[in-house]
């Protein structure tokens, strides 16, 4: 039938189908034979092996959790270690009446609702005969009570276990972070086998960022137990690999100085080594005792921390976004020089206010309310930085335009995460016409450029961003993504270098010299801290408005409520000739920069002039 090839041929089709069915049946039979052969091999040939294995399936695989890596400061002072503690757990399979056992246990030792919740959660995901943890950190007395009542508590075991401990309490709460019990979401995300036998995981900070490094690798042992679950012998054992130890760039003396200098105030201090990008101090106050979190914080304690108006859980150093205020003036000055819009000799007339062409609104200089006039008839760059003259930078901002500012300030790292090795970092805002269009769907107004020129308006920066910007100022454009961790198990971890801020050496020097005058100049805005100073420091003050001030109204610090007072800021680096430390300080509602610059001086003093580190370490252990 070749001539009818396109037509359907039912006979041929049926023949093909029959042939295919026969093939299919042979394939099915063949594969079924393979399967049955496999079952035959397991059930007949290897029967003895598997029967023994199943009989001994009291042979248990016990996970051996790894020891979590320790965390040290740069001097070798322990910041996080592991302490032996006792843990109460229940082998559900060995407890015939679990509810009854739990009721009995509650009569003997305190067990909180959250303990129970965690217990049931873990119970649902356990392996057969795996002890499910119920209570951590048993006291000596509780252990004794449990030992006495042991016969009444089938399946209840008390095991020794290493638990995270933070010797310095609140001092490193935001720098190091803490571990806590693994919650449901984390249990899903973590590698199940690697975390068998581990009940804690890094929750925030270095503890979380370096979780993989700190955790180590789980080991296991095969143990033979008798019918009651008592271990008879260990059949094989694979030791766990302990987590790597971390050494941080942080210096406990510096950290302590910053913490004490901030005192009761809310604020943050970030100190960096401009040469390496290492974070020498990272403090956010108020802090909190991280040990509270290790075993599941009580809801009362947690509520107190969460609801405190001071938000102690908030890491101001990386999460706090503040208007940088006048601290951006050195960056603006460099932008002016680089763009050619100003020279060191260029001057601006300063009546104490500035007016946009064709606009009646007066943009005031902060000095107006003090002197009733401007800084000087004409102000040059050095004076503008030294005395923090707003009018000079209003004028520069107008001519540079907001997008020009973006172009010159962005390389310093504003508006981008610095990539510091901790959690929850925010990116701040470096506004531009495009940013406003994308985020607010509005056009940019010329007046907003003036506010941005003195670090107000939409502009926001985190303390760590400011610290990075200072390192760039200190080392003429070179800066790093900050690193808290200096080395892992003794192996150095270099900070990744950011694309340098490009500017000519002359321009850097002009700006640096102006910053030195802020501290050492006769009319420097931070000249008060130059008193008795043994080295040269460069800095810049800043004041960030918390509430808007209406046109014509004068801001009077003593009249506004504490929470509405201005934030005080200060950035600095020292020694001037060869900087080894760069600092950013913010004091929330400090009133002005005078709240911030003494803190920077104390921190830099400690770093450059030294302190008995051994003494600090000793008291630290006790605290």
């Amino acid at each position, binding site marked *: 039938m070749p001539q009818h*090839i*396109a*037509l*359907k*041929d*039912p*006979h*041929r*089709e*049926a*023949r*093909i*189908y*029959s042939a*295919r*069915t026969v093939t*299919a*049946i042979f394939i*099915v*039979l063949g*594969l*079924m034979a*393979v*399967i*049955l052969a*496999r*079952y*035959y091999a*397991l*059930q*007949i040939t*290897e*029967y003895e*092996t*598997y*029967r023994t*294995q*199943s*009989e001994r*399936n009291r042979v248990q*695989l016990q*996970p051996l959790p790894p020891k979590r890596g320790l965390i040290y400061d740069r001097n070798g002072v322990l910041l996080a270690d592991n302490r032996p503690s006792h843990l109460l757990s229940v082998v559900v*399979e060995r407890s015939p009446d679990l509810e009854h056992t739990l009721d009995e246990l509650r009569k003997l030792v305190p067990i909180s609702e959250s303990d129970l919740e965690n217990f049931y959660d873990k119970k649902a995901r356990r*392996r*057969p005969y795996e002890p499910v943890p119920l209570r951590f950190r048993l006291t000596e007395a509780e252990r004794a009570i449990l030992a006495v009542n042991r016969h009444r508590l089938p399946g209840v075991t008390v095991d020794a276990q290493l638990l995270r401990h933070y010797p310095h309490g609140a001092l490193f709460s935001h720098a190091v972070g803490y571990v806590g019990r693994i919650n449901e979401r984390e249990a899903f995300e973590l*590698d*199940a*086998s690697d975390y*068998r036998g581990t009940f804690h995981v890094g929750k925030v900070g270095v503890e979380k960022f370096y979780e993989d490094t700190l955790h180590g690798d*789980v080991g*296991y042992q095969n143990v033979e137990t008798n019918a009651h679950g008592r271990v008879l012998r260990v059949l094989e054992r694979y030791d766990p690999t302990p987590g790597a130890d971390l050494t941080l760039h942080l210096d406990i003396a510096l950290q302590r100085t910053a913490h004490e200098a901030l005192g009761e105030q809310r604020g943050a201090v970030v100190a960096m080594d401009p040469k390496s990008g290492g974070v020498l101090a990272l403090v956010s106050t108020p802090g909190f005792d991280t040990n509270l979190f290790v075993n599941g914080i009580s809801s009362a304690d947690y509520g107190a921390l969460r609801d405190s108006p001071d938000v102690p859980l908030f890491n101001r150093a990386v999460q706090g976004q503040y208007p940088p205020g006048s601290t951006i003036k050195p960056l603006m000055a460099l932008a002016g020089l680089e763009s050619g819009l100003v020279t060191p000799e260029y001057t601006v007339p300063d009546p104490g206010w500035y007016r946009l062409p064709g606009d009646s609104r007066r943009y005031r200089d902060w000095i107006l309310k003090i002197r009733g006039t401007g800084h000087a008839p004409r102000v040059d760059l050095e004076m503008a930085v030294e005395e923090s003259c707003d009018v000079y930078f209003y004028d520069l901002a107008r001519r540079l335009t907001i997008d020009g500012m973006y172009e010159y300030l962005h390389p310093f790292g504003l508006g981008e995460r610095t990539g510091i090795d901790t959690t929850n970092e925010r990116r701040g805002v470096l506004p531009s016409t495009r940013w406003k269009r994308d985020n607010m769907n509005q056009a940019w107004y010329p007046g907003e450029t003036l506010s941005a020129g003195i670090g107000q308006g939409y502009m926001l920066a985190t303390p760590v961003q400011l610290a990075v910007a200072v390192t760039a100022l200190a080392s003429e454009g070179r800066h790093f993504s900050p690193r808290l961790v200096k080395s892992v198990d003794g192996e150095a971890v270099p900070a990744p270098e950011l694309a340098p801020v490009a500017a000519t050496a002359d321009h850097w020097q002009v700006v640096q010299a102006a910053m030195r005058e802020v501290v050492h100049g006769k009319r420097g805005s931070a000249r008060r801290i130059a008193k008795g100073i043994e080295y040269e420091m460069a800095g810049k003050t800043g004041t960030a408005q918390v509430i808007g001030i209406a046109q014509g109204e004068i801001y009077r610090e003593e009249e506004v409520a504490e929470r509405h007072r201005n934030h005080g800021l200060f950035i600095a680096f020292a020694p001037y000739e060869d900087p080894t430390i760069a600092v950013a300080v913010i004091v929330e509602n400090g009133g002005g920069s005078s709240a911030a610059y003494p803190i920077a001086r104390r921190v830099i003093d400690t770093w450059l002039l030294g302190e008995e580190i051994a003494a600090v370490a000793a008291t630290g252990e006790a605290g």
Partner: protein
Amino acid sequence: MGDYVRQLPGHSADLARPTGTAQRLHLDLPLLGLLLTLTTFGLVVLYSASGQDMGAVIRQGRFFLVGFMVMIVAAQISLQRFQRWGPWFYLGGIGLLVAVDVAGVGAKGAQRWLSLGGFRFQPSELMKLVVPMTVAWYLADRTLPPRFKYIMACLAIIALPAALILIQPDLGTALLIAASGLFVVFMAGLGWRYIVSAVVLACASAWPVWMYGLKDYQKQRILTLLSPESDKLGAGWNIIQSKTAIGSGGWDGKGWMKGTQSQLDFLPESHTDFIIAVLAEEWGLRGVIMLAGLYLLLLLRGFWIGLHARSTYGRLMAGSLTLTFFVYIFVNMGMVAGLLPVVGVPLPLVSAGGTSVVSLLAGFGLLMAVSTEQRMVAR
């Protein structure tokens, strides 16, 4: 010879004279009998595997009830109607799969479920029937064996839903659905040279797929299969425990509800994907052979219905449904015994679970419709 006989008019009519309720209800008695035996056996094993949980048995019994009702309803529908509906089901199914990828409910990292007013449902399960229906619809009116361009069209019909399921991601189901569609093409007489070249191509592309195509957890499953000892605390545990359960059953088994592996909870997923291990432990190799025998009879009946079908569409459907059913059996029994990767395929009609029971029995309903057509035409 059989061929010749089948073509004689009147021959089938002798076999197919309406002989009672079963015929009037369009039921294929041998098939029905085998299915009832299998499901009953499944419930008995389930009772033990669930730790003597009567609730689980009742729940599963209810699924069987729903499944059998769906099967009976499907058996009443004429094959021409199935054939006409196929492409529409297909379009609807594709829509649902897109909806799952866009708005599905996640479970264990994969989006497979669609929530319809509190009722959760897996569109990929639906496609296990719809894909072969659509391919058979497409091929039924063409000259067979299919020419190259028709084969390409079939591959496109298969690839679209398979790809949508793959990105959920659910590799196992995607492969099974692709297989169910390919079986239609195979039964239609796909040339051997195409089959051989496809196999060669598949082997050659295995390396790049391994390097770039597989998710870590999928690689992990394959590696665990090759060396379960390597991850004793994690993925290897299931296979080690199920092999121990099977092996320790021996020839006689430990007795119903006496399997230590399963009763002491060493065996994971003992009432769902790994239920055959419970059977093997408690009923021994005898039980496994018995189950395999039941399955084989079901498969042979399926092939028989295909051989005696009147229309091309009916033939292709019967053949592919039967082969797909076998793939489930093979993959599940193989994976539990450590022969194949653990891909999460239930043991058909025995493992606990509703969706797969309903879709499998719906498939058997279609098979019964094929066998009904054979009788109707004959009459």
